[in-house]
């Protein structure tokens, strides 16, 4: 292909757009993807969304709960807490006896969930686990289910995780709560929802962007700009400058 002004400018614009897209993705890992992770348990769908890119600091999360016919579920008691990366890794675990296996959510994310039945069962009570998923359907076979219950494992490397109550939003969009991520990397958000005495528990994996992303982006763009300036300098040395002729004023 002949290299002309036109092709080189188009190539440059294309590179600029690709850079923008790639950098945006670095800066917003998972933002578009995390918006709308859905886990279905016993016909009840739980969709977790964030109002922004999931990064270190405070992030508003909204959990939408709908029943088997798609109607919003009201009156649920919802809690969420951030847990460590270790739990997310466990989603690959396949447990045939539980009727479920590690799989992907609607967006292709690994997700895990527990349906805990009984009024007297607490979310993290290992005793509740044998009952988990007893009502599983084919729809739920994509949901990973497993045992977990020790706080030690969950908090490894992530400090003390705080339980956040998620309250019904004013707009009726679901249940809202502010989660605080203290460090970047792979995390899971463990959500426990109590609906009409039935307790559901599930983990949503999230990738949290760290503060260093900005420095990396800045460095990358800085290097590219320096290269352009250097190239411009070389070009200037090899050619004399020119000013467009007056007729260009009438180009339109």
């Amino acid at each position, binding site marked *: 292909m002949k290299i002309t002004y036109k092709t080189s400018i188009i190539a440059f614009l294309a590179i600029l757009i690709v850079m923008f897209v790639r*950098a945006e993705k670095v800066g917003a890992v998972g933002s578009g993807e995390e918006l709308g992770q859905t886990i279905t348990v016993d016909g009840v769908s739980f969709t977790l*969304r964030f109002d922004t*890119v999931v990064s270190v*600091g405070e992030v508003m999360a909204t959990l939408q709960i709908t029943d088997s016919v798609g109607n919003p579920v009201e009156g649920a008691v919802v809690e969420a807490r951030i847990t460590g990366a270790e739990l997310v890794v466990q989603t690959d675990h396949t447990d045939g006896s539980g009727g479920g296996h590690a799989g992907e959510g609607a967006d292709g994310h690994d997700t895990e969930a527990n349906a805990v039945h009984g009024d007297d069962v607490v979310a993290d009570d290992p005793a509740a686990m044998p009952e988990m998923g007893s009502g599983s359907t084919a729809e739920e076979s994509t949901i990973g289910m497993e045992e977990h219950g020790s706080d030690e494992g969950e908090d490894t490397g992530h400090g003390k995780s705080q339980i956040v109550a998620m309250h019904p939003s004013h707009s009726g969009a679901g249940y809202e709560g502010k989660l605080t991520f203290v460090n970047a990397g792979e995390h899971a958000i463990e959500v426990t929802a109590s609906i009409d005495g039935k307790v559901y528990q599930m983990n949503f994996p999230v990738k949290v*962007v760290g503060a260093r992303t900005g420095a990396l982006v*800045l460095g990358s763009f800085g290097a590219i700009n320096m290269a352009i300036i250097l190239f411009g300098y070389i070009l200037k040395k090899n050619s004399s400058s020119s000013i467009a002729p007056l007729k260009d004023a009438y180009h339109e």
Partner: protein
Amino acid sequence: MNKSIQTPIQISEPANATAISGRNPANLLENELIGRFMRSKWYPGIFQWPTLAIFMLIMFELLLGPTSAHDNFGTALTWVLWWPVIPILFLFLGRFWCAICPFATINDVVQKFVGSNKPAPKFLRKYGIWIIDALFIFVTWSDHVWGVVENPVGSGVLMLTLTTGVVASGAFFERRTFCRYVCFLGGLSGNYARAGMMQLRGTAEICATCTVAACYKGSEKAQPCPLFEFPKTMTSSANCNLCASCAKNCPNDSIQLTVRPPSFELWFVRKPKLEEAFLSAVIMGIVFVQNVTMLEAWPPILRMLEKAVGTTNYAVTFSLAFLISIIIPIALLALTSWIASMINRESTLVNFTRFGYALIVLDMAGHMAHNLFHLLAEGKAILFTGMALLGQDVGHDVSAALMAPQTIQWLQFLLIGLGLAGSVYTCYRIAQSNYSAANKWRTFAPYAVLMILFAAMNIYLFILPMAMRM
């Protein structure tokens, strides 16, 4: 495809605002204070360099500051202060922002030291506005899908991308090629500047005898026009950033800077262009989508779309909503133009192109009204995040509002009302300039209805509760 249309009736375009006011508007450059200041070496540098310094601070904050938009001073300055204020600047000062824009300053600095000053490529000159249209749509889309406004790093990436564009433009091409032919903000400001109140032109009688053309070519006194304008033939303020280089260069004192009524230029567009009319409709769509996605009713709408397309992937559902929002004003303008074409016997395309400009006033009003909410409901965030930068924490529970929501809403209605009046009157003037007395009102009527419909849609969206940006 640079389509400009030919008008069937000779338009008597006034050279300045005289035709409206009935008297000669004052040439601001003849005012000793203003004239001396604008022709001095300090102008516009006295504004440029502080703007660049603030830009550096913003970049530092966006990329290396707090990761939460709520706490980021860069986010507050950019999206709570600058973005809402900029359309107001366009209205009163035309494209003046472009003279002091930090990206333009970076372009100039790079150009001064390493610039090859190649002529702007022909294809950019030919398709520039279409490229701007496409980039504007792309950047708005990416803002929602990847979170530019809500994510400081995302905002930083957008700024760095623009910086890379101007660095490349400054290094290889003459003047401000990027600003004129590629920058989507330039396209937006150019469109709004048409409705702006500032007008810079050459004096026809003086320019007619000029053989120097220092305004375009430059001289030892100042650089040539950075946006490739030639005051002698200028009929639009879309590409004049009031940098006053032409005034500094002109040996005959031909340049006039006058104040004109808002939207005045839109009444007499001599060569309307499809891409510019299209951009006006696109901006209306973007104002809609910005409003809709900030409504508290947006999540239920999103769920409805998720059900319709069968995926919860936000990129897919938002793209659909975005497409619908962009298509609505374009389709309505096309439909109205088709109706008008039945009346005035001109093609739909000609009508679309000619009357598309009337949307600019309502675009501006919608843009201002939407961002007024952010400025007035979140304005204190600028102070709070600024204090946080200095180590003072005001906490998260303090309201950032400068005014009560009800007051803001009334101001929004007022702005839309003014925008509607401006757009309807512009339709009338366009019809008056182009059609016979018999066809004037009949052509005007469907466009007036369209403007009322757009205004009603905007007002309806402002009635609904809106979410915060910070």
